[in-house]
């Protein structure tokens, strides 16, 4: 009898083309997502006289370098060149491109699922570290570098060494005001920014199963902030309901066959993971980061920690450095920290559920600092407008912008100023991430909305009725 297998193991085994030395396998790739940062890989491919092996499995969009202000796609000739190059390469190779002016255009990790390209049981890669987002559907999805992008374009495969497996179980019910972002920040703070290195994570437990697909994507998205290239969640009725009828999802007879396959994917009882971690959902509070690593996260009710209280000298030094960069004093209540700007968006938190959560907080209030809403895709923007969310944000003084990565990474020039403190729904609070000298606090859309209307880090649970 076969030993019980994990979902990861099943997907991995299905995609092995050949065994190589040293435990490496040649792994087949079902989906390759591309963005305008991929230009260098296309150029190298062209120089070597090679072609894209499977243009029908490759899909492209522009997100990193486009401006999100209406009317002006790029800020300068350099970035315009990158976007144009992507259009040219995809046209030459016959790759479907959701480009400038296409309402389906958006953040690559938002539109893959939205179009039904991301489905359970597949391998999916993209030249972007947040590719684990797609694992929310029970796919094996991971970020790759530029050389690996070129390798996939040319061969539709990658040489990979099998990672170890880790299951993170979150059991119980989340308290009101607590959501997926708080869960993943709590997980990262528990296992550390390097805790998932060389692991594929499976998120499990009743709190995860109770989440919508948008929420599950938020959790899987930040696997890389815990060091893991891949994070995944077993597909279930929530997954199937989300996917059915999406433009590029299987349909008709193919849907039925796919469904049968997907239902057999979840990890079997008794399957063994290399590492198990358990969290109680009831113990997770609205969470914010105070430092310059995503692991520097605490409940909003806490105070800025004191490096002097830490025994390990290396840790003490890096904490002190983080606090100096962040301009924070130990012992300050997090709710006393004043913010200068709010960013709601990114592949972590720019989907409809996120915008709704923010709008519920904003309705009837006013932003007291500059605050941006950057929807994840043109279609999400449109759907939000149909629901009237844009009016709620505009009436509150928020900027309602076009889809893109924007201030999460600032590659398009949309950055915060030196010393500015940003309440952000993005995924990284690294030094300089949102602009040279910019100070980032990561949090959920509801918490970022609360910060926008108070001008401070705020426990959304204490806001009361508007």
């Amino acid at each position, binding site marked *: 009898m076969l030993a019980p297998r994990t979902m990861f193991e099943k997907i991995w085994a299905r995609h092995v083309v050949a065994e190589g030395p040293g435990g490496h396998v040649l792994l087949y790739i079902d989906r390759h997502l591309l963005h305008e940062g991929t230009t260098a890989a296309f150029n190298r491919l062209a120089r070597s006289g090679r072609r894209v092996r499977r243009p*029908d499995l490759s899909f492209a969009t522009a997100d990193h370098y486009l401006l999100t202000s209406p009317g002006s796609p790029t800020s300068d000739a350099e970035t315009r060149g990158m976007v144009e190059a992507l259009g040219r390469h995809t046209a030459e190779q016959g790759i479907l491109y959701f480009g400038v002016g296409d309402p389906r255009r958006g953040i690559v990790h938002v539109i893959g699922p939205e179009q039904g390209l991301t489905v359970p049981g597949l391998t999916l890669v993209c030249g972007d570290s947040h590719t684990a987002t797609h694992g929310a559907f029970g796919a094996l999805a991971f970020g790759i570098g530029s050389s690996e992008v070129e390798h996939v374009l040319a061969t539709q495969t990658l040489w990979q060494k099998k990672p170890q497996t880790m299951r993170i179980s979150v059991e119980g019910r989340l308290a009101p005001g607590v959501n997926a972002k708080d869960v993943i920040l709590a997980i990262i703070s528990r296992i550390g920014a390097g805790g998932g290195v060389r692991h594929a994570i499976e998120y499990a437990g009743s709190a995860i199963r109770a989440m919508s697909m948008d929420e599950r994507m938020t959790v899987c998205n930040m696997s890389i902030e815990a060091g893991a290239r891949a994070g995944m969640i077993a597909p279930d009725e929530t997954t199937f309901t989300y996917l059915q009828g999406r433009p590029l999802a299987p349909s008709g007879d193919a849907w039925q066959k796919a469904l049968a396959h997907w239902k057999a994917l979840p990890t079997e009882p008794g399957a063994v993971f290399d590492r198990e971690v358990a969290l109680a959902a009831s113990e997770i509070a609205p969470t914010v980061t105070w430092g310059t690593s995503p692991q520097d996260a605490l409940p909003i009710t806490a105070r800025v920690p004191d490096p002097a209280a830490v025994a390990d000298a290396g840790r003490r030094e890096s904490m002190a450095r983080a606090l100096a960069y962040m301009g924070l004093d130990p012992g300050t209540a997090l709710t006393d920290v004043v913010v200068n700007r709010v960013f709601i968006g990114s592949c972590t938190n720019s989907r409809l559920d996120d915008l709704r959560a923010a709008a519920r907080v904003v309705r009837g209030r006013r932003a007291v600092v500059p605050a941006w809403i950057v929807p994840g895709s043109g279609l999400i923007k449109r759907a939000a407008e149909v629901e009237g969310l844009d009016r709620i944000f505009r009436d509150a003084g928020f900027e309602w912008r076009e889809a893109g990565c924007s201030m999460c990474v600032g590659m398009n020039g949309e950055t915060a100023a030196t010393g500015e403190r940003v309440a952000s729904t993005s995924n990284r609070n690294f030094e300089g991430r949102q602009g040279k000298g910019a100070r980032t606090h990561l949090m959920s859309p509801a918490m970022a909305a609360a910060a926008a209307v108070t001008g401070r880090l705020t426990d959304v649970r204490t806001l009361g009725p508007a």
Partner: protein
Amino acid sequence: MEPFTRLTAVGLPIDLPNVDTDRVIPARFLRKDRSVPEYASFLFHDVRFNADGSERPEFILNQAPYRIARIVVAAENFGCGSSREAAVWVLAANGFRSVIASSLGDIFHQNCFKNGVLPVILPAEAVAGLRRQLHERPGATLTVDLEAQTVTAPDGAPHRFEVDAFRKEMLLTGRDEIGLTLGFDARILEFEARHAREMAWAVPPRAGT
């Protein structure tokens, strides 16, 4: 790709854990082609230079003995964060051919292999010992020998490291990985035929262009 066999060079100790690739090369430089003459200056740019472009003397790479360093000796989780391969390109542009750490960001780790840069994982105590020696004797050299899988510390102590047989061979020969894989074309075709039978739904409908 330039092969990696054996390198004796000055080591650059970086004590900070979780050095992310945004720090190694800030996002605003990613639009720049690797051929631009100032490319090497993007490495650690925002902690290495002041706003007026002058060097920060306290940053270790700006100190005389370390200017010729070619081996990074880091702490845990170096190269975490973004998948940007430019983090490796910009290290290579500054002459670095090896990164020693107790752990590395997974994507950075892979990207090193693709660019003739040898990533070496050693136990945390061993790496801390190497950094200590490099601080005590600025400009001290290490030897990284891929064939023998050893790092020789400034004090002469050898540290054996593990490396995958596959990656080792690729680095030693400098072989083109895509060329190698294209040699598996028959196997890939065979896989695709089986995949199309067993998981026909895995190919998306020809999209509405």
